[in-house]
């Protein structure tokens, strides 16, 4: 049930039961994030490979932008976003900065995949979770007083997932054109460092009590502005516009990919909030597993592969699953959580944020004066986003592809079941706080 934290109640420490509930919720969110982030690859696979990667990325970001302004309006109303910003206005800076980092990291990833192929780019990219663990420990007291078993669980789990990601990436690359060049490795490493460091703003915002829905609203501004600047800088305005026009029958699929990606990202944010970046990020990195499932079952990738390829797929999947399980079983203890509270208190004092607001955010409770009123603006945002998708769907062309529709329906149904069950749990436990 939703509860309202008053100034008096937030003073008392969180009960062990509530902490366990939030930790389980955060882990659930991480798993759902993996499914939806991986599923976002499916619509993108339907797009003609002639469209340049930078344009693909830009159109996806447009879809992301629409989703990130309409989903918060639908779930909690823009008044709650305004309220969050009024409580901790400094976090807008970090939200925009994180968005800028995302755009640069995504473009570097595209470079890396083109230059060295998936087999090298993806494992290096996946290393971002190890950097996330490092920053979480160094800056936000994560894994402090955690005990050696949890350390082994988190680090061992992340290492197993890294090894699994390497195997899966090698299997995925068996049909990809061979890549070359040290620059590609540097690009992949650079992307990993950018993704991994992007979690600093995430954790800072959620320790201070900001709602992930509010954070995302500003994140996407940095993301869109940087992506437009990069795309215009790379291609020039005229060439970019011409490519957008010639690809208009594919815009819907790319923007749909962006929309699906936002749902995954939203759950990743809740995971980062409730289990920290050291657990939430590795769990959501299981997206590689889901992407591979879509590729193999729906798009007939790896067909006719040799025994080595199938061994890599099975071995990589098992390793990723075991790594995720190890992390899921290493949730924060009461002692570790008290260290998180110390970090949150430090943030609150530094920026003059009300203590009750910070604590209520950490405990997933509504702060007493939180605005949740829906306004006309919410309706306009939702209607405008829906209209854009309807118009693009009307001019979209279904590409001629050999797809296994039964598997596509089964995977989409699995994603929906995860979304609804986690959404209901999130609502009942925190009211989407």
């Amino acid at each position: 049930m939703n509860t309202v934290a008053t100034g008096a109640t937030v003073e008392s420490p969180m009960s062990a039961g509530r902490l366990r509930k939030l930790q389980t919720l955060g882990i659930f969110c991480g798993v759902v994030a993996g499914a939806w982030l991986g599923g976002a690859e499916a619509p993108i696979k339907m797009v003609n490979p002639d469209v340049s990667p930078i344009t693909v990325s830009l159109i996806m970001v447009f879809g992301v932008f629409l989703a990130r302004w309409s989903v918060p309006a639908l779930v909690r109303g823009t008044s709650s976003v305004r309220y969050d910003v009024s409580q901790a206005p400094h976090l807008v800076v970090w939200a925009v900065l994180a968005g800028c980092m995302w755009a640069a990291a995504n473009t570097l990833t595209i470079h890396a995949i083109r230059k060295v192929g998936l087999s090298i780019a993806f494992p290096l990219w996946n290393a971002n979770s190890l950097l996330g663990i490092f920053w979480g420990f160094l800056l936000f007291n994560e894994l402090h007083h955690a005990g050696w078993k949890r350390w082994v669980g988190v680090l061992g789990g992340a290492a197993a997932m890294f090894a699994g990601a390497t195997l899966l990436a090698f299997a995925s690359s068996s049909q990809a054109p061979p890549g070359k060049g040290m620059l590609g490795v540097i690009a992949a490493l650079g992307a990993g460092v950018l993704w991994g460091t992007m979690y600093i703003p995430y954790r800072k915002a959620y320790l201070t009590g900001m709602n992930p829905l509010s954070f995302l609203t500003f994140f996407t501004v940095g993301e869109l502005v940087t992506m437009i600047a990069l795309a215009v800088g790379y291609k020039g305005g005229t060439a970019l516009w011409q490519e957008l026009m010639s690809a208009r029958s594919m815009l819907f699929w790319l923007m749909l990919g962006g929309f699906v990606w936002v749902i995954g990202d939203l759950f990743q944010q809740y995971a980062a909030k409730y289990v920290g970046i050291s657990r939430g990020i590795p769990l959501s990195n299981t997206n590689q597993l889901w992407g591979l499932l879509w590729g193999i079952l729906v798009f007939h990738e790896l067909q006719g592969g040799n025994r080595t390829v199938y061994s890599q797929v099975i071995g990589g999947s098992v390793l990723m699953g075991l790594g995720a399980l190890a992390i899921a079983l290493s949730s924060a203890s009461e002692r570790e959580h008290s260290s998180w509270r110390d970090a949150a208190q430090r943030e609150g004092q530094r920026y003059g944020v009300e203590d009750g607001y910070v604590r209520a955010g950490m405990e997933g409770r509504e702060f007493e004066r939180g605005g949740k009123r829906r306004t006309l603006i919410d309706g306009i945002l939702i209607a405008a986003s829906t209209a854009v998708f309807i118009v693009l769907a009307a001019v979209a062309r279904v590409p001629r592809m050999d797809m296994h529709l039964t598997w596509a329906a089964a995977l989409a149904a699995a994603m929906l079941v995860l979304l609804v069950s986690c959404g209901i749990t999130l609502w009942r436990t925190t009211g989407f706080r």
Partner: protein
Amino acid sequence: MAKDETGRESASRFRIIATDIHFWIPLLVFVAGLVLLHELR
């Protein structure tokens, strides 16, 4: 707008941000990423 104990507003908030390591680490990494992107063009 939330105020701290001494009632300081935006100006001092920017000063606090400017001395926050949590701001400089991501910013420097972002700038390095842009430089790398430029080299890759």
